[in-house]
């Protein structure tokens, strides 16, 4: 496993990406060797409330001139993420990272990969897309959101897909941009139309992942999902974040995940 560390980081920049989502760049002098799918546990307050760090996927890592910039994309949903949105540039936080496993990024003979994103599920998948593009592994990228305004980083997504001749498929629940409907519906249409993917990599809200699981199981497609369970420690010691596997065992998603192959997951895990 790649060495995790409790990094002293500085909020170097914050940009709005949509009405609800924003980007944070965290700067540290340490090197961070993260792979797509891994996450970090970030402090978001100073006192004991909120008590726990928040789990955030790593959207990218860039090192230059002795400084590492870790990119995260965050949706403001509750107290921790609101604090983060209002943290001033220059604030000092701590980031325990990189944690967990990552997506399998190898090519599958003769097919492309299918990358599927729902909403704020973008960061690990975009990180994967950019690394696949750099390695010239072909993929199509499906990105769904509630509305056009909530589609994040469309240009960057298009650029990554284009680099390997892949398609960027956009969908919105309200039809205000891209195809109308769920991102899994768009995927299904392409599959029905003869598109073949050697492996699906996905992150998004549970209902989307549930739909995707059914789709993948029905068609015996390999698929890896990045799951989001409430986490206290992020390092496997609290057992709060467990996911049920097909054999009935509960495993810590912060250690054995957050990326799981659909065929390992208990069916009743899906809501």
């Amino acid at each position: 496993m790649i060495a995790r560390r409790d990094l002293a980081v500085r909020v170097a920049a914050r940009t709005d990406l949509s009405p609800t989502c924003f980007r944070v760049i965290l700067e540290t002098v340490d090197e961070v060797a993260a792979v797509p799918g891994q996450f970090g546990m970030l402090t978001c307050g100073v006192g004991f409330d909120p008590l726990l760090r928040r789990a955030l996927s790593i959207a990218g890592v860039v090192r230059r001139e002795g400084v590492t910039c870790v990119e995260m994309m965050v949706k403001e949903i509750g107290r921790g993420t609101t604090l983060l949105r209002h943290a001033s540039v220059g604030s000092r936080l701590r980031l325990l990272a990189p944690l967990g496993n990552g997506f399998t990024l190898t090519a599958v003979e003769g097919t492309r990969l299918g990358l599927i994103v729902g909403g704020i599920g973008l960061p690990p998948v975009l990180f994967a897309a950019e690394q696949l593009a750099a390695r010239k592994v072909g993929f199509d990228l499906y990105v769904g959101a509630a509305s056009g305004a909530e589609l994040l980083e469309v240009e960057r997504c298009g650029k990554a897909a284009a680099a390997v001749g892949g398609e960027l498929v956009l969908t919105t629940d309200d039809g205000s941009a891209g195809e109308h409907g769920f991102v899994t519906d768009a995927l299904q249409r392409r599959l029905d139309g003869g598109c073949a993917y050697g492996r699906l990599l996905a992150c998004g809200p549970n209902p989307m992942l549930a739909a995707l699981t059914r789709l993948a199981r029905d068609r015996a497609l390999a698929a890896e999902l990045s799951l989001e369970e409430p986490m206290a420690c992020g390092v496997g010691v609290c057992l709060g974040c467990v996911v049920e596997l097909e054999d009935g065992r509960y495993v810590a998603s912060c250690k054995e995940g957050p990326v799981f192959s659909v065929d390992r997951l208990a069916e009743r895990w899906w809501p």
Partner: protein
Amino acid sequence: MNVRLDTTVGSLKLTNPVLAASGTFGYGLDLLEFCPPESLGGVVTKGLSPRPRRGNPTPRIVETAAGMINAIGLQNIGVEAFCREALPQLRVRGAVVVVNVFGERMEEYLEVIDRCEAEDGLAGYELNVSCPNVTAGGMEFGHDPVPLERLTAICRAATRRPLWVKLSPNAPDLVATARAAVAGGADALTLINTVRAMAIDADTRRPILANGFGGLSGPAVKPIALRMVWEVHKAVPAVPLVGIGGIETGRDVVEFVLAGASAVQVGTAIFRDPAAPLRIVAELETFCDDHKVARVAELTGGLQWR
């Protein structure tokens, strides 16, 4: 001047008074690069039962104001796997290991102890009779002095190693359970386990935890834990106590020690900071040096009532 941090809990010698608490530090080997187990006073294992336990369904945790509620339900690998997989490494490292023992019936506690008695390199046992998150075992022994004394006595007969009993803050009469554990032969008492609590999702109108109830821990409970340690210390001053509940800093350790603890355990703080126990040892050292304390042990019970 440098404070001497070494202390004793009954017959057990510790290089410093800070242990990692049960259920918050795995089996002692998960956070090696942040907090090597041998650098602490000791580590208390996740509660071990005779056979592996799956634990409760999810959600198992929820954050509250300055605290968290957990209902893990004692998921553990079982005493056999612990002895085979974790213990040898802990032994090599020279860690002081206290096994947190859990059973649904009295015989199960004995099974765990018996299996451990076959092993070297274990410092002692902590009986978990206070877990609020399981239906059988746990609380029913911890809330009623009569079965508690019996359970303690049975376990006492099974080992010569130090035997600690971990008390429940939810017991009707804390001091009575303390006395019962001592009467049964406990060498020391650990307190407190988590406080029975609940969180509700106003949107879905359901409890947030799958288990409904859970146990509250973290800084929120510290003032309650401190009061209980002092109450038990006043009631049974000769009995060594291990204080626990919301400890986050070296100063917190001093407070628990003044209230009567000979050692302390750090739990939830580890989730916020994987190096918490080690940091706390360093803070404790600095505090003592600044306050010209020659030995931490001399502070135990040193609270001056106004």
